Each structure stands twice: as C-alpha cells, then as structure tokens.
C-alpha cells in the first residue's frame, strides 16, 4: 500500500487519542503515512511526527467555521490536484463523520463505517465491522475506483510512538465553500466534569434502566468516584433524559475498554454490549438472572442494584 492519510483531530494543541491510534495502524499498512489537520499544522507537527506522520497537510485556522465542509473540500481539491492517497482514515467522532460524509459525496465514493479492524488482503484494504451486538463480524472492501474512505471506531488500535521527527507542514488550501460553509460557531461551552474521561478511564461504572428513576443515577457517580473512574450510561436512560448523551456507552455513544467495567441495572442490549465488551473485566449487577449482560460478565451478581450498590459504596468508603 502506498500512502494513507489520517484525519487528525486536536484540541488545545494536543492530538486526540483516536487520531494517534489511526496513525499507528496506518504505519503498519502503508509505505507513507501523512496527516490532515483542520487548523494550524505547526502546533501538532511534533506529536504527529512522533507517531509516524511524515507530512501534515494543514488547512490553517478555520476561524469559527465547522470542520466538515472545509476539510472535505480541501482534501477533495488536493486529490483533484493530483496528490491522491490510496486511503483516508477517519475516527468515528463528531467531526470525523462530518468530514468523511462530505468527502464521500465530493469524490463519489462510499465510506466504509464502524470499522474495528483494518487489514490488507490481495493489495486492497479490508475493514471489519461488528454487527448484531458484536456477535458477527462483517468484512468489506472497496471494489470501485478512487480513494478508499474508512470511519474507524475509537479504541480499535493501540497508539504507539514511531520515534519520528516533526512532520513537515504543508498547506492544504480550503476552496470557496459557498453556502455549505455558512454555519458559524458563536460560543463554546465545556461541560463541567470531574475525574477521568469516559473513554480513557481505567474504571467505568454505568447505570441502566434498572435504576428505576433519574435520581438514582447519583449512586453510579458516587461509585465511579470512589473507584477513581468515570460514570457511563445505557442508551435507554440517555433517551429517557436522565443523563446527558456524553455519558452514553454503546454502539451509539462511546466505546470503552477499561480494566474494570461495572454494569448496574443494565440488561445488556446488543447496542450497549458493542461499546463495552472489550473491557478487561466486567462486573454486572442485575435482578434478572436471564439478562444477556451475564453472558459476558466475569462476575455476575443477580440482585437488586438498590441494595447491592449502596452496600458496595459503604464498604469502599469504610476502607478509605
């Protein structure tokens, strides 16, 4: 494989872990790995270079515009100008999906989505997507012409430094976007969060419908805090409006692979299991002995979360 581009996302001068994961896998598959950044290239050139990108194609400051149309147009213009990579990898993130979707239309090629494995067979890249709650793997490759676009789920690969020097910064001009570039960010709000991030935490404690009511979610947060972890949720209680979407673990939501995952009152809908079955150890508490979550738990407790969790919290508090 010749050249793979990785759409690299960064905030505050730090490259997102998903982007470093993609660079690590791209390096194993391609002769040349280059990064594409929607923003200034200089602040991230050293980190991207240390993870194997030889060049960073940077659009320069996007101002208050959204990355989707700007980065997609810039990549499409570069490809039309003759510098086409064989494939472009995107993380399954808010902006990654936007850029990949827009670019797919511009290039007239599909996007292979939800990839957790990427391999090379007979000279073409094959992406593997888990379906039906991760019980079946479907592998797909492109059979048309043009650049291959893959959207890869976070935590599919392990980020690793290559020891490379800083990436060379190359300008990736954004063409006139017309109406497509008209959306403007007028303000940015950071939600207050304490403790580790959900997808980076060593311990994740999640709550589901078995909690019974929104107020009971506080015990999930208490337990997470005591274990130095992050609090997650099933889609059922996010949809019910008990907790914000940012807590959601699952196919829709975050993929987590902590050392310990504690599922409280979660039956184990397939959509949830996809997001957490890669956890090293799974502890499940549910009153229904038939709940599918017990099928993948290392320790399953058939019991009432309203009894077990408070006692667990008390026992942990007594130790500290």
């Amino acid at each position, binding site marked *: 494989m010749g050249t793979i581009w990785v759409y690299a996302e960064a905030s505050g001068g730090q490259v*997102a872990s998903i982007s470093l994961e993609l660079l690590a896998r791209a390096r194993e598959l391609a002769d040349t790995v280059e990064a594409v950044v929607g923003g200034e290239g200089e602040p991230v050139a050293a980190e991207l270079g240390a993870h194997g990108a030889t060049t960073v194609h940077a659009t320069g400051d996007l101002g208050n515009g*959204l990355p*989707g*149309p700007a980065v997609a147009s810039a990549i499409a213009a570069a490809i039309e100008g003759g510098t086409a990579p064989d494939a472009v990898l995107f993380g399954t993130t*808010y902006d990654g*999906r*936007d850029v990949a*979707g*827009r670019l*797919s*239309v511009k290039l007239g*090629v*599909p*996007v292979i989505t939800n990839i957790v494995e990427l391999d090379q*067979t007979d000279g073409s890249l094959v992406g*593997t997507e888990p*379906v*039906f709650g*991760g*019980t079946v*793997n*479907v*592998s*797909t*490759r492109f*059979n*048309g012409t043009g650049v291959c676009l893959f*959207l890869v789920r976070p935590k599919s690969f392990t980020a690793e430094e290559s020891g490379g020097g800083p990436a060379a910064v190359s300008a990736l001009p954004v063409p006139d976007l017309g*109406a*497509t570039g008209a*959306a403007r960010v*007028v303000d*940015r709000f*950071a*939600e207050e969060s304490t403790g580790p991030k959900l997808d980076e935490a*060593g311990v994740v404690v999640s709550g589901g419908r078995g909690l019974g009511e929104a107020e009971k979610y506080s015990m999930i947060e208490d337990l997470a805090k005591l*274990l*130095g972890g992050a609090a997650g949720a099933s889609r059922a209680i996010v*949809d019910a*409006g008990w907790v914000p*979407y940012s807590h959601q673990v699952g196919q*829709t939501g975050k993929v987590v692979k902590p*050392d310990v995952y504690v599922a409280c009152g979660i039956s184990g809908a397939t*959509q949830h299991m996809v997001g957490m*079955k890669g956890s090293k150890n799974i*502890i499940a508490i549910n009153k229904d*002995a038939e709940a599918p979550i*017990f*099928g993948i*738990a290392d*320790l*399953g*407790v*058939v*019991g*009432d979360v309203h009894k077990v969790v408070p*006692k667990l919290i*008390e026992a*942990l508090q007594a*130790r500290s």
Partner: protein
Amino acid sequence: MDIVVCVKQIPDPADPGELDPETNTLKRDMKLIMDESDSYGVEMALQLRDAAGEGEVTLVSMAPNEEVNGLRSALAMGADKAILVSDEALAGTDALGTARVLAAAIGRAQADLILAATESSDGYTGTVPEQVAELLSLPSVTFAKEIQADGGEVLVKRQTEAGYDEVRCPLPAVVSVTAGVVEPRYPSFKGIMAAKSKPMDQVGIADLGVSPDQVGWAGGGQEITDVSPAPEREAGEIITDEGDAHERIVALLEELRIV
C-alpha cells in the same frame, strides 16, 4: 416554517437481526417500524412548526418495498404529509446511495430546514445527514441537542467532546438531532385516525431522476468479503445476592488492584 424530517423504517430492534445469506446485507423483508431515533427529529419539527405558527412538516423515507407503517406512526404524531421513495432497485443501497435518493426527494419539498437522526438504529453509518447536505449544497449542523429558529437562521446547540458549541446557521440547512433531547409525543387516537387520510406521495427513483446504477447492490462501490461469528467472550462466575454480594465485588476489585 417548512420542515422535512428524514425517517427510516427498520426491523423492530427487539427482534434479533438476520443477514440475508445471498447478499450478506440486513434482512428487511419483515414488517418495519419507525426507527425510534427518528422520533426525536419528528418531535422537534412539530415543535418548531407550531412555534412558527405556519408551515408544514413533511416526512421523507425510502424503502425497497411499499412499507408505510413507520411513516403512519410519524403522521399520527402530527406530521402533515409524507413522501415515500419505494423501488425494488433500492434493495441493498448503501449510505451514499440512500443520501442521493433522499436528497432528490427533499429537493421536491422546498424545505427551510431538513432534520434527520444522527444515525439509524440498524445501519449505524452516521454519514447520511452530512451526505444529504453536501448533495444539496447546504450548510449543516450535526449532533444537535437543541434547535431554536431565529428569523432566517437556526441557533443550534451542537454536542462536542468537551460539552457543546452554539452554532448559528442560515436556512435552508440540514440539522441532525441526537436521541433523548426532546420527549416524543404519543400519538392520540385522533392523531392515529387522522394519519390514515394524510397525503402519502409514493414515487419511484425514475420520478426523482435517480439512475438505477447509483443505488442498490451495483451502486455501492463496495463488497462484503467475509461474514464470520465473532469470538465469544466467556461468562464467568454468577452469584445470587444474599446480602453479601458487595463483599465478593470488593474482593475482586482488590484482586485487580483497583482498591
């Protein structure tokens, strides 16, 4: 305010899914229902229409058969009419082909705002709203948790990794809506009865000027090379709480050096 909501009709997620052994794509030949993810967009559209005091909510959907069950549910909630693109040639259409068909259908509706879910609950590609926007040369805001109409613009709270951004976007525009942000209304009996007589415009891809080689199996540009069962994770120890299960959990956490 005229609003189009993209609605997908999917197999009931409560039933186990199945792949067609011939084509390796998801079987959709059973009765289909409205994807629950789309109910939030429908609710948001109804609220925006009612706040504006004028305009219509039009549903746009596509299916290889003539399925209308899911559309009737959304009409019963209060949407005004529906366009169903139904064509045998659509079987096996991927996300880009779907976007081409939806964009062509939306083009007939003259909408100020086009709403969609962020992703469907059966395919999960999550790229269709942005592809539709690009095909229609429109601006877009994805992952909206709140939409306010403000003259010829919308003010959208867009989910981000850190929290949310407030985004201002002129209309017409495409906005994708995250689940759980509004409470979808239950259809009333009156609504269900009224839905039966609401306009349902059924069109084929030829009516939309979409060529059969842009959709279906042929239009995909991708092929499935392998389908295999994933390695199963083994179940471990299952205990029944007799009032002391928390001690067993603490012991495991100690063993794993978490505490």
